[in-house]
Each structure stands twice: as C-alpha cells, then as structure tokens.
C-alpha cells in the first residue's frame, strides 16, 4: 500500500520477501501438525480456525481507512465477522481443551 510506504519510508513486505514468508509459513504449518495424535484432531482444527480469526486485524485496518459509506458498510461487516471468528473460535477451542486438563495419565505416544 502506497500510504504505508510513504509513511514508513520503506516497504517491509516488498516482492520476494513476502514469497519467502509464504513458503516458510507453509512448511511451518505442515511441520506443526504432522505428528498429532488423533484425539487432538478436532481441537486442533478448532484451534487453527481460531488462529485465522486474525483476519480481524486486516478488517480493522480496512474499516479504519474506509472513506465512502459503501466501504464503511463492507468494512463493518468484515470486522463483525472477523471478531466473531476469533472470539467464538477461542471459546469453543478452550472448552474442548479444558477436558485435557485433568491429572489422568497422559499417553502422548499414541497416534
């Protein structure tokens, strides 16, 4: 975004740097999940669902820069949906994982 480049004097996400981030992030996601026991599949799906709720941040920026009523309306919708994704995702995941809290013997080797 030009505005940011101007304000900032440089653009941190220039061209290929972003592509490298894409690549490394993809490998990270793959690695993080490759050794997950089946019992955690549902909580992890829910947890990753929560993490992409960070779209809220993008929505806030967009609404913050909105000029016309049209942009405000769509931006409002974006923040509303993003906030719902993040808050609901957290509530659900936390509830699921709270069941793993007890002191029962934890079998971590099971896949």
């Amino acid at each position, binding site marked *: 975004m030009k505005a940011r480049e101007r304000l900032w004097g440089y653009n941190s996400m220039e061209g290929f740097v972003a592509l490298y981030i894409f690549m490394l992030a993809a490998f990270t996601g793959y690695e993080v999940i490759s050794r997950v026991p089946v019992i955690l*599949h549902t909580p992890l799906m829910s*947890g990753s669902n929560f993490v992409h709720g960070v779209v809220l*941040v993008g929505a806030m920026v967009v609404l*913050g820069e909105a000029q016309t009523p049209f942009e405000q309306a*769509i931006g409002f919708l974006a923040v509303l949906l993003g906030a*719902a994704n993040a808050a609901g995702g957290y509530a659900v995941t936390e509830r699921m994982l709270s069941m793993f809290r007890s002191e029962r*013997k934890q079998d971590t080797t099971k896949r």
Partner: protein
Amino acid sequence: MTTTSFHLIIDSCYFIVALLFILGLKSMSSPVTARRGIIWAGAGMVLATAVTFAWPGMRNYALILLALTIGSSISWWAGKVVRMTDMPQMVALFNGMGGGSAAAIAAIQLSRGTAHSAIAITLSALGALIGTISFSGSCIAFAKLQGILRKAARLPGQNAVNIILATLTIASGIYAVVSGANMSIIAFFTLALLLGVIVTIPIGGADMPVVISLFNAFTGLAVGFEGYALNNPALIIAGIVVGSAGSLLTRLMARAMNRPILNILFKPITGEVMPGTALVTGTLKEISALDAASILRYARKVIIIPGYGMAVGRAQGKVKELTDILEQAGVEFKFAIHPVAGRMPGHMNVLLAEANVPYEKIFDLEEINEEFSGTDAAVVIGANDVVNPAARTDKSSPIYGMPILNADHAQNVIVIKRGKGTGYSGIDNPLFYGDNTRMLYGSAQTVVSELIKHLKEFM
C-alpha cells in the same frame, strides 16, 4: 513520536503475535500442552487487536469498536453455551465467518483498485474467491449438521454444473480485476457464493468433517492472501500456517477414510443403489436390554464402538457408568474409535474425555482391529457406516475401500440404534443382518441406562 517509530512498535508486536500463534499451534498438537497452546494463541490475538488501534491514519474508531463488540460478544456467548455434541457445526460456522471477513476485505480492495502491485491484486481476488466459497460452503455445512438441511441433494449433471459455474466465476474474477467495474465485482462475488453452495450441497454424511477441514484451510489461505494485499505480516503468517496445517489435516482425514479428496467433492456418497449392488438379505434380530446385559456381564472382553448416535443421545456419561460397572464385574473393556466416527475426527475422543473415560482405554482403528476376533462382545452405540463390512467386500458400495472397524469378527455384536433406518450416508449395513448380531433399539441414553440397571441386578 514519529509515525516511523509507531510502525516499528506495531511491527514488533506483529512479530510477537506470529511467534505466539506458531508456538500456540505447536503446543496444541500434544495433549499435555494443548491448553497452554490456546492461551498463548489467545494472548497473540489480543495483542494483535490492541496494537492495531494504534495504526496511523485510522478513522471510524466508533464503528470498529461497535462491530468488534457485537461480533465477539455474540459468538463468545454462542461458543460458551453450545453443547459439546454440536461443536462441529459451530466450528464450521465460525470458520465461514472468517472466510466472509476475508472476502469482505477483498471486496474493498478490489473496488478501490489501489493495490500496490499486480501480484497483490491477483492474490486479493484469489483470496476473495476462496474466502467466499469457504463462507457459503461452511454455512451449508452448518445447516446440514444442525439438521436445517436434511438430505444430500444432487443436481442432474452435478459435475458439469460445478465446472461451468467454476469457469464462469474465475472468468468474472479476471474481468473484475482487469476492469475494476463495480458490476463485475458484484457478479464475481455472487457467482463465488453460489459455487460454495452448489459444491457443498451434494456432500453428505461421513464426508462432512473432511469438508469442514478443507474450508478451514481455505479460509486460512484467503486470510494469508489478503494479508499480502494489505501488507500485513501477521495475517500472512497466521493465514498461510493455518492454510497448510489445515490442508495436511484434511489429507490425514481423507486418507483415514480412504476417500481421495477429489472423490469427496465430486463423487459424493448419496446412498443410491448402484446397479450391481448386492442386496442385503436376512432378518434383523432384536434383543432385550436384559439379555444384552447378561451377555456383557458374562463376557471376558468387550469392545465399545461409539458413533454419532452416542453424541446425539448425549449418552457418553452413561456409557462411562456402564464401563465402571463392567470393570467391577471383572470384564475387560476397550473403546474403539474410528477416525471419522461422529462428525469430526476426534469428536468421539472429545466426548469420552468429557465423560472422564481414561485415555488408555481408547484405541484407534489400527491398534484394535486385530482384537475383535478374540472379543466376546462388540457394542456398537449409534455407529453405522464405520462398522459396515460392505466397505471391505462389496466393490459396488459407495464406501468400498474405507477402512472399517471389524465389529463383525466379534463373537457377539450388540447394535444400539434408534430405529431401523440406514445411517447418515443412507447405505444399508450387512452387519446388522449377521448371525452373531442382535439389535437393541432405542435412544443411546435410554438403552444404556437400562443396561446399567440390569447389570446392577446381576452384581
């Protein structure tokens, strides 16, 4: 303070946010650290949201706060009160909202036409496409699991319709990017919405968890792409990490069902009898709760196979009580969990954990499948497709090739089932007609309570 130092602070915070997300997800992949994981990721989310208020040149603070409050409070409440058994559709719904948010961001980007490069506008449009599909598809998935939409409907020439609609959508997307005309942007989003609906509607039953996981990965990618268009590293990293983790999770699930992901999307299980399908013959043999209880009481080894019926009947607490009594009676028991039992992988594990069933009693398909032949009684509680032997033998069966739990190898099979209908996928199950199978009709909650009552009389 200059705006440059503002940006330095914001970017440092986003860096910490990305780190917290990755560490959080990593922790969530082990039962010991899982709870810590969600708390870290939650802290990351709070930090990301808070620091974004400091973004230079922001306006509309009142609107932002209003949307933030309404959206988060309603869904927080919904997430807290939803029953454990309804979790899968809740995840689908929240995921759809994330996709919708990414699509809305893209809509503004496209209509402004001020993206910083050709790559940015292309990725933005791509994010719009998959975000919108994820939104409408997840809503359909929610409606199906919630029981609002009941049957998997298949259009005549479904695949052709899919392909034509997909082509039209992509074409309108390209036109929207090149021309930037408002009408073409609206057409693009409408077509993408429709595509999500049309692709998801025919998918039924056992395939739904895989589809939800796929849409989860879609939303992740959409968020990552919008992150690029917005120049926001937190969005890029969180989005792409979730996109790739979600894709892998989808593949793990699809592999567990032995159903390639393309078949799930384009050759859905519909329960239609295909030509050449062997008709199931024999009779269903009913058993009373009393007789079933005596089989269990005098068994040496019992394997319990829970399915969606247990979830619907909210019988997990009763089932735990049943196993406590069996343990007192000296009967060895184990739980066998099929990877796709319920509506999400691990759904049964979550429910059993809620009922305090010890982990060491719960076994995966590969771990336990050999043991059925040495088992006196297999108790199937509201499971159907995951124990259907047609998957092993009947080449014409829509679920042929899916690994199943070999319940039919046990000495006795007791099937607890609500009624005589077929399972969620609508396929008839030869197991129920087997010589060693007895049917115990009723809701899981009632039937298990009766079993407990009779078992106590035997003690």
